[in-house]
């Protein structure tokens, strides 16, 4: 086998040591450190990103829960508000109705009373005028004048008797 030819051994050994040494030095100084550093850096970065993502997710979840709770309280509040408003509206309506009814009642009563008064006054007027007219007629008929008090008494008696007769 040509490989066992010792003639070349010395040069091969020499150049092997030299070239391996050079390669070792170059890789050790210029290739491995930056590659290892990049790997470490990437590992650190990935770890950091994952942690950050985890943290963000936890934060988002917490916020979500907060919002849900807020929403729940808000809807509850709205419900109570609505209920209160309904109740108030009902009360106001009832009050209005009540007031209207009483007012109507009162104005009706007022009107009745007024009518009654008017009627009574009218009757009184008619009575007075009738008395005066009767007196006038009577004066003309009797030809003499009675004093006023006599007239009145006599007219009243006459009217009372008329009213009495009308009643029966």
């Amino acid at each position, binding site marked *: 086998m040509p490989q066992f030819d010792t003639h070349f051994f010395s*040069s091969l050994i020499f150049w092997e040591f030299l070239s391996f040494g050079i390669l070792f030095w170059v890789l050790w100084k210029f290739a491995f450190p930056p590659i290892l550093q990049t790997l470490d850096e990437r590992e650190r970065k990935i770890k950091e990103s994952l942690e950050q993502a985890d943290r963000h997710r936890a934060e988002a979840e917490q916020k979500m829960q907060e919002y849900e709770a807020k929403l729940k309280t808000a809807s509850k509040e709205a419900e109570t508000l609505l209920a209160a408003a309904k109740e108030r509206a009902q009360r106001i309506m009832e009050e209005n109705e009540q007031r209207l009814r009483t007012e109507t009642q009162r104005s009706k009563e007022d009107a009745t009373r007024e009518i009654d008064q008017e009627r009574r006054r009218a009757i009184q007027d008619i009575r007075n005028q009738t008395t005066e007219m009767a007196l006038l007629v009577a004066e003309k008929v009797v030809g003499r004048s009675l004093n006023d008090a006599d007239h009145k008494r006599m007219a009243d008696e006459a009217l009372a008797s008329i009213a009495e007769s009308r009643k029966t």
Partner: protein
Amino acid sequence: MEESPLHPFELHNYIPINLFGLDISINKAVIMMWVVVGLAAFLLVKAGRSRRMVPTKLQSLGELLVEFIRDIILDTMGKGGLKFFPFIATLFVFILFSNLLGLIPGTYTVTSQIIVTAVFALTVYAISIVMGFILHGVKFLGILVPPGTPGWLLPLMIPIELVSQLARPISLAVRLFANMTAGHTILGVLFGLAIGGGLLIGWLPFAFTIAMNGLEVGIAFIQAYIFTVLTCVYIGDAFHLHGADDHAH
């Protein structure tokens, strides 16, 4: 076939150089070592230069390589082995590039030279022995006695373990050398058959050549990987004598 199938492994000195009586002539294998070193250094330094968070293709390859070697070291030696990372990674890169570049027709496979693989294997073994004695002192000789061996078996066990220890660098060197030599020899023989067979029958060995070439690419990776893993295991053994430390095999 008038030529030996091992003919491609022959070396010829292009430029004879003599350094203080030491013959360091330039031949094809030496030139291939330069190519391996130049290409590997260029690609890996370029890969390290880009340093992007979203890696470029070359950067990805470089990172893949670094993580691959780091995982091998962590698996076999534990965290303490990481200080050997530059040496082991360079070893892997050198062997892998030698194996792969040798597959290109017309080039030379550096690792098909037994002396090259032997130098690597002996260096690795020497590191493991020296490390062992530095870390454990005389107690490192206990590597010759597997844990739990009864006293009366020692005369038998120590020679056996000694042989197994000595077989380590030899097997390490021979495995890589033999794989590279055999693969290229088979390729050469098949291609010779393809040329010699003519059109009528020659296509068959030619098709085999193509398939074998694919297989050889795989073997180039696997042998580099095996060499690296065994390096880690041997140095790791010296590191953790009988798995006494945090990491056990």
